[in-house]
């Protein structure tokens, strides 16, 4: 896997699959928000990629979905993952 530094594009919202994994678990945004101890609007903002969560929240979400964090969040969805 190629290392791609992201320090120069920290302001860019990351792509994520939070909505997909939440739906798979059959949860509403409000239920996921309660589990993460954040507001429903924050979950909505993450899902619509208007807000990039902090590292602790990103890890908490990944653990909650029982997925690696880079499977839930992707800073560069267009790149070749096997490159």
């Amino acid at each position, binding site marked *: 896997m190629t290392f791609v530094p992201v320090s120069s594009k920290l302001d860019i919202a990351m792509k994520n699959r939070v909505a997909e994994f939440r739906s798979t678990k059959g949860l509403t945004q409000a239920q996921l928000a309660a589990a993460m*101890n954040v507001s429903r609007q924050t979950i909505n903002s993450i899902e619509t990629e208007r807000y990039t969560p902090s590292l602790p929240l990103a890890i908490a979400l990944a653990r909650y979905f029982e997925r690696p964090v880079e499977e839930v969040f992707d800073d560069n969805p267009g790149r070749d993952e096997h490159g």
Partner: protein
Amino acid sequence: MTTLGETNMVRRLAVPITAVLLGAAAWAAQALGGDFLGGAVSFAILAAYGILVLVLSSRSDVGRVLAGDPPDERYRAIDMRALAAVGLVLILYVIGGFLWEQAHGRSGAPFTLMGAVAGLTYLGFVIYGRLGG
């Protein structure tokens, strides 16, 4: 529904109490300056703001931000950005005021001192942040 713990309640009371205390201080200052009634109006405005913030804080997330108790990290970031915007507007006001005063042949006071305080405060916090990680 959010449970209102004791710590959150204290946090949410901080801004309303500060507003009331500030109102009382404004009243006292204006009374000392000979404007007792004007001071009472200042107190009423600030106390009303404190009560409004307290009521809003139990009804909305934005109310909690105004009360100094943002509900999560995103609202904390919003709060920080709003504070940064306030700082930017104040700096622009100070620079504008300084230029206005200079253009009228005056020293630039009090904007010169305000600008110096703002600049040194910013510098101090950058160094503090750098040292503190």
